[in-house]
């Protein structure tokens, strides 16, 4: 499969090249061809550092940011990264505006487990989409994708932070094929979309887990004729999933509708309803849900706006029934496009109306405040605070109340200078407190990220960055990454690039789970100007 992917990419590049030299259809374009080598040096547990799961050593060939426009109007673009390595990430498309478009993607990702990385799963996702506009106001589209995953992984009980960690290996090997096609009809004021989707899950481990799913979707949007201030939209989706070894079926019918009215100057009233009915062969997982939302918005053109909203929800599984109501308040403001302020509060209360559901009454609140200031040519600074709290009765008993409280504060500073270059600094603070019947869990995280992009000097361009992460209280993790890059331009459009990335991970509650890695990438690249 790897050889075929390389062959396919090579053939694609050759065909583009041939088109480029054919006088009748040649055009112009740009891109960057890169060839190089990646060296990976690692020590410790290969299964703990997310950033390096998918790092491979070897020769790497890439075509980046390729854009080519033929004289006949066809546009080609491609981003083919690491064609020759197992972590390839490929994307290519060809289109002619108003006529057709076709795109291809291929993405491979590895997730490693275990201290020596010998256990891993490899995922490969390949897809193609196409559309054509055969007539005015009509679009036909379709796509096909395959997701394959195979390898060996640790089960859920291996997760770090469990009281007792089991590292038994579980094999995985499946192929999931998906197909979709449909049609879209549209005019200046309306849009109708029909789509059919199908997926087939083929488990190759020898266990009988094959499944298939089918769904049909319809979406409609339109302004009301002779009442442009009023628009309506809606649709439905019918979906059925079947487990092929027996008669198990899961069906979901989802319906939604909404209307938006632009009332007296600067006021907008919106209403939306969504209902979903799910049924399962066993009857134990049937549930019906309904959500109604009503919002009123007042815009202040050029300044911002205010919004208030009300929401009601009902969930009913035939035995237990809950109802929830909530309010939404939000506002956004900008002063001369330099100062931006935003705030939002969402409050929701859920009560048990009937029966004895496993989770009883629940309260869910979310608050958000953010501010951003854009300077006069020096950059911008922003800060954002996000708080979520949740309180609910466990086992439907007020004697067992669980609470979850989460705060996140993030601040960012972007600096730019025509003479010196650019810099980005980010600090995030996360605080989580979870209190439930038998236990508590808390974490306090600090994460710093900084990247410098000095201005090019004597054909040399540098970049320097790092990330430091420290998580305390009931977890004790320290992680950092440093990346340094240099690029030297020669012969006007050739570059010698060197990148160095260093990673370190420590879990002080599980000292064996440490990782140190050094990755060096050396490339020769050339700007393409066709």
């Amino acid at each position, binding site marked *: 499969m790897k050889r075929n992917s390389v062959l*396919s990419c090579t053939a694609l590049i050759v065909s583009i090249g041939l088109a480029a030299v054919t006088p009748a259809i040649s055009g112009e374009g740009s891109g960057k061809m890169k060839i190089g080598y990646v060296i990976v040096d690692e020590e410790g547990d290969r299964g703990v550092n997310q950033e390096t799961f998918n790092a491979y050593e070897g020769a790497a060939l890439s075509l980046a940011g390729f854009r080519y426009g033929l004289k006949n109007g066809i546009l080609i673009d491609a981003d083919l990264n690491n064609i020759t390595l197992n972590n390839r990430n490929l994307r290519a498309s*060809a289109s002619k505006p108003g006529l057709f478009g076709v795109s291809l993607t291929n993405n491979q990702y590895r997730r490693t487990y275990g201290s020596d990385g010998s256990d891993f799963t490899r995922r490969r996702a390949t897809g193609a989409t196409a559309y054509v506009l055969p007539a005015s106001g009509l679009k036909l589209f379709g796509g096909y994708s395959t997701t394959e995953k195979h390898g060996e992984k640790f089960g859920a009980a291996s997760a770090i932070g469990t*009281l007792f960690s089991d590292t038994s290996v579980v094999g995985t090997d499946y192929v999931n094929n998906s197909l979709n096609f449909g049609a879209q009809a549209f005019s200046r004021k309306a849009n109708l979309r029909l789509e059919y989707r199908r997926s087939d899950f083929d488990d190759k481990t020898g266990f009988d887990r094959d499944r298939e*799913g089918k769904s049909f979707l319809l979406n409609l949007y339109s302004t009301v004729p002779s009442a442009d201030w009023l628009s309506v939209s809606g649709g439905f989706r019918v979906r059925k999933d079947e487990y092929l070894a027996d008669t198990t079926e899961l069906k979901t019918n989802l319906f939604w509708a909404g209307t938006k009215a632009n009332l007296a100057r600067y006021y907008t009233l919106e209403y939306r309803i969504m209902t979903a009915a799910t049924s399962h062969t066993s009857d134990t997982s049937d549930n019906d849900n309904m*959500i109604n939302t009503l919002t009123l918005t007042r815009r202040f053109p050029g300044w911002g706006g205010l919004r208030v909203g009300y929401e009601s929800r009902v969930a009913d599984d035939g035995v237990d029934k809950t109802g929830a109501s909530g309010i939404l308040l939000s506002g956004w403001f900008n002063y001369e496009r330099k100062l931006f302020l935003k705030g939002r509060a969402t409050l929701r209360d859920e009560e048990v109306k009937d029966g004895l559901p496993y989770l009883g009454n629940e309260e869910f609140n979310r608050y958000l405040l953010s501010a951003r200031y854009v300077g006069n040519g020096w950059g911008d600074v922003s800060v954002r605070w996000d708080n979520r709290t949740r309180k609910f009765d466990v086992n439907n008993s007020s004697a067992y109340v669980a609470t979850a409280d989460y705060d996140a504060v993030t601040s*960012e500073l972007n600096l730019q200078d025509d003479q010196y270059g650019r810099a980005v600094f980010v600090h995030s603070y996360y605080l989580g407190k979870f209190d*439930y019947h038998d236990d508590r869990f808390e974490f306090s995280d600090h994460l710093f990220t900084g990247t410098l992009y000095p201005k090019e000097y004597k054909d040399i361009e540098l970049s320097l960055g790092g990330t430091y992460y420290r998580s305390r209280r009931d977890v004790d993790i320290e992680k950092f990454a440093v990346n340094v890059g240099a690029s030297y331009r020669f012969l006007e459009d050739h570059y010698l690039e060197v990148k160095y990335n260093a990673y370190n991970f420590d879990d002080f509650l599980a000292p064996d789970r440490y990782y140190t890695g050094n990755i060096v990438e050396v490339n020769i690249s050339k700007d393409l100007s066709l």
Partner: protein
Amino acid sequence: MRKMPMKKIPRLVRTLKHLLLPVFLLFLFSRVQAAEPEVSSRVLLKPAVENTAALEVEDDVCLECHDDFDRTLSGTTHRLASTIKSPSVIIGCVSCHSGGPNHIEDPTTENITNPAGLVGKEAFRTCTKCHMAHVEMDNLGFDVHFDQQINCAGCHSVHGGGKSLLLDDRAEFCFRCHVERRSKFSLRSNHPVQQGNVTCLSCHRMTKRQDYNVAYDLDRTCQGCHPEQGGPFPFEHEATTAYDVEGAGCMACHDPHGSENDHLLQLPAERVCLQCHPIPAGHRAPNGHGGIGTQHTCQTCHDGHHGSYTSDIFISPDLTEQIGIGLDCSATQCHGLTGRRGN
């Protein structure tokens, strides 16, 4: 009904399959004739596109002063019609920059529009001469970016934009406004967004929105890449089966951006269970079944927490082999495969 196994496809056929698209493209390019420099009689236009066959100012007049600006459009869908031999859409400089004739007489910045600098409805009108806005597409008529009066040019760049004319289709671009998300992808576990294998647009879409968070199809979003967890299962875990309801399903336990815990869990593996399930007294009794409960986490025994093919309390069918004891937990008189203890 069980599916029949696929026939083995000959290797030569599989190889040729990978050459199919490049050959097709080459054929297509060669067959599209280089027409005379006029609008092709086969022009197929979306009705939303205005075919301004006669531009009030020709492109070469603009390019006399603003030379090379046509090159910034050369690899994009807004290529000037004057640079294409058979354009399907007539686009010229003045299609977006209105005020051309006045600007020629008196070239100042005040009498020519720059859509990138417009705000609110004025900016919206420039683009919607030809394009349906996100808010008008199949997304319930609601678009949070539109509501915030974010200019199209806030995300799209006509001159030199990338895929879909986005300023940047990588996550870094979304992080400019959604600053709090950047750090999430550097936590202990996260989706590989920083590595480029997943992008914000893998889950969040500006169209086809059906929920509050602009992620399409709620939990179906997850199952597109993680079909093995998708079900249906003969025995469903209700926490994961609240299909199509916001805040439930996969998000009941996982934080899709990043987490301090493994497997994107909001809480460490066993503790996520304890949110809803107090530990039964017998599970942690030191003398119960030889003290198994004091040595193993919830997921060791109950590994079907996404749904089970064999047990309504999600007991692993390989349990005895996994934890290496002599008891048969699946014995029907105890934790039967298809029933609770003692039936």
